[in-house]
């Protein structure tokens, strides 16, 4: 109901911003004033009519005047209420009504009937009291004002209208009025105090609730901050992971590239190992070929001299010179033959390979290097020495092993090469008395790029390539070595089915 009323246009506008208690006060005050206005208007009309019927019209005048004044006060009050000024309206109606009432009583209210008519105003004023009085001081003022007025009334009746009342009854009435006024004020004070305490406790309760709400808000905002922080952390972690992922992807690509590079490098190194072997080879071959060519050349020069100077005839000398030419030619032919084995480009593993002649070829090619460093002992005991494979590759294997043996020897070396048949296998053993291989290195010697030679001298691929060549042919290659004593390489190969 309240809400409907205060949602009504003007009233809502006026009290919209005030608190609930003030609204309630305004609510009751407003209707009381309207009620009071109608009541006092009715009283006015009835008093006027009564006055006409009575012979002493004059006596009624102060009463009519007072009621009229009260009506005016009510109208002004209503005006202030509608304007929204609750304080002015409240005070106006209270003090206005009370003053008019007392004024009427004191000036002309000796007629008991006139006092009865004021009942409405007293009722309205008293009802309004709790609504208007908002301080303890006002309660005291109300009490004091009424006591003063009561005293004035007592004095007036005692001294000027003593004929109307028995002094004892007057005194008794005065005491009654005084006590009821005092008790009324005390009751009002009590209600006010209780009200204040209730308000205070509710305010405290509200404050407490607000505190809790504030705390909750704080926690909530804290929580929000925490959540935000966590979210940021998570986002960061996520972006970190994303970044990490990206990095991993890049690393992966890099690794893939490195792998490709490595493969390329390996291929190049395999090629360079071949080229290195070839380099050693050509230097050796050049020397080897130049030597027999020197025989031929020298023999030619000798023969030239001989035929220019016929006097100097010497059969033995001619024979020697011719023999020199023949030896030179044969040696050159052998070297070129051996060289051809290396330059073969066939990659198939289906050739019949004569291991003995391959070993001889390799010895011939390494002759220059072997000659001044080591003595080679050959014990070719195998009857079946043909295996299926690739001639060029076998040359590579034995060239590598013999080169390593030579590199291990500093001087006065011995290299022993033996072949023999064991069951279906051809076993080739190459033993040297070089500086050997350290115990901790023997497992690594077939690893690609592992080398004990100084940088630039070895690629570390020789034995790795040899190992894979032998492996491809279903053979095995083993290394036994003692440091400072020498190394034995044992190669086992399946004998070719079409062996001789």
């Amino acid at each position: 109901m309240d809400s409907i009323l205060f949602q009504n246009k003007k009233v809502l506008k006026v009290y919209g911003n005030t608190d609930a208690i003030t609204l309630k006060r305004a609510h009751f005050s407003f209707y009381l004033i309207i009620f009071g206005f109608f009541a006092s208007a009715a009283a006015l009309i009835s008093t006027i009519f009564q006055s006409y019927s009575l012979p002493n019209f004059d006596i009624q005048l102060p009463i009519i005047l007072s009621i009229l004044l009260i009506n005016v006060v009510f109208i002004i009050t209503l005006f202030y209420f509608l304007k929204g000024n609750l304080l002015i309206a409240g005070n106006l109606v209270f003090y206005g009504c009370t003053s008019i009432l007392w004024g009427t009583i004191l000036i002309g209210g000796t007629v008991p009937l006139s006092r009865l008519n004021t009942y409405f105003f007293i009722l309205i004023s008293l009802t309004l009291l709790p609504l208007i009085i908002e301080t303890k001081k006002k309660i005291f003022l109300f009490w004091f004002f009424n006591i003063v007025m009561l005293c004035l009334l007592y004095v007036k009746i005692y001294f000027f209208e003593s004929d109307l009342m028995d002094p004892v009854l007057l005194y008794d009435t005065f005491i009654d009025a005084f006590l009821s006024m005092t008790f009324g004020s005390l009751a009002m004070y009590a209600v006010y105090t209780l009200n204040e305490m209730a308000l205070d406790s509710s305010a405290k309760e509200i404050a407490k609730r607000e505190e809790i709400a504030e705390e909750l808000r704080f926690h909530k905002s804290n929580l929000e901050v925490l959540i935000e922080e966590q979210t940021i952390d998570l986002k960061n972690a996520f972006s970190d992971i994303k970044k990490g992922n990206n990095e991993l992807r890049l690393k992966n690509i890099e690794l893939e590239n490195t792998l490709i590079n490595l493969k390329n490098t390996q291929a190049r190194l395999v090629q360079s190992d071949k080229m290195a072997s070839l380099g050693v080879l050509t230097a050796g071959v050049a020397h080897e070929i130049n030597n027999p060519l020197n025989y031929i050349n020298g023999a030619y020069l000798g023969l030239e001299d001989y035929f220019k100077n016929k006097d100097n005839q010497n059969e033995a000398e001619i024979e020697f010179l011719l023999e020199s030419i023949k030896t030179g030619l044969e040696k050159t032919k052998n070297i070129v033959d051996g060289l051809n084995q290396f330059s073969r480009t066939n990659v198939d593993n289906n050739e019949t390979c004569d291991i003995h002649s391959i070993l001889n070829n390799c010895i011939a090619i390494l002759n220059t290097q072997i000659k001044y460093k080591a003595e080679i002992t050959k014990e070719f005991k195998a009857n079946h020495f043909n295996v299926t494979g690739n001639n060029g590759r076998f040359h590579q294997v034995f060239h590598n092993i013999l080169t390593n043996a030579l590199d291990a020897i500093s001087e006065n070396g011995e290299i022993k090469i033996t072949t023999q048949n064991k069951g279906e296998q051809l076993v080739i053993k190459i033993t040297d008395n070089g500086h050997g291989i350290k115990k901790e290195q023997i497992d690594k010697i077939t690893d690609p790029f592992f080398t004990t030679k100084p940088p630039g001298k070895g690629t570390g691929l020789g034995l790795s390539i040899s190992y894979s060549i032998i492996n491809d042919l279903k053979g095995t290659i083993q290394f036994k070595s003692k440091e400072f004593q020498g190394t034995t390489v044992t190669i086992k190969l399946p004998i070719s089915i079409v062996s001789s």
Partner: protein
Amino acid sequence: MKEKVKVLYIDDETLNRRIFEFNFRDYFDIRFAEDGIDGLDKLKEFSDVTHIISDYRMPKMSGLEFINEAKSLYPDKLFYLLSGFDITAEIREAIDNKTISKYFQKPYNREDIKSTILS
């Protein structure tokens, strides 16, 4: 007749020594050694030798090692290297610091050796 130039030829291969003898016996008075050690002995023995021609690759001691040692003992004598190998950095250095007067390559050019030694 003018006395022939005395030459020491060092080579480990008999065939080479004999062919050298056949080719140059008309021009030089030739002594032979089989390797560096032998060469040093022969130099001590035949102090009148003025020109020494050595092979490069030999057992015990390389031609260059022999020449380095011999040159320090006999700085006035002239040393030559005769080898089937291509000229190497080591040989180039020896030529540059005058340890070796000239490098001959096998198969040799007889006229080149003859004119160098006789000049």
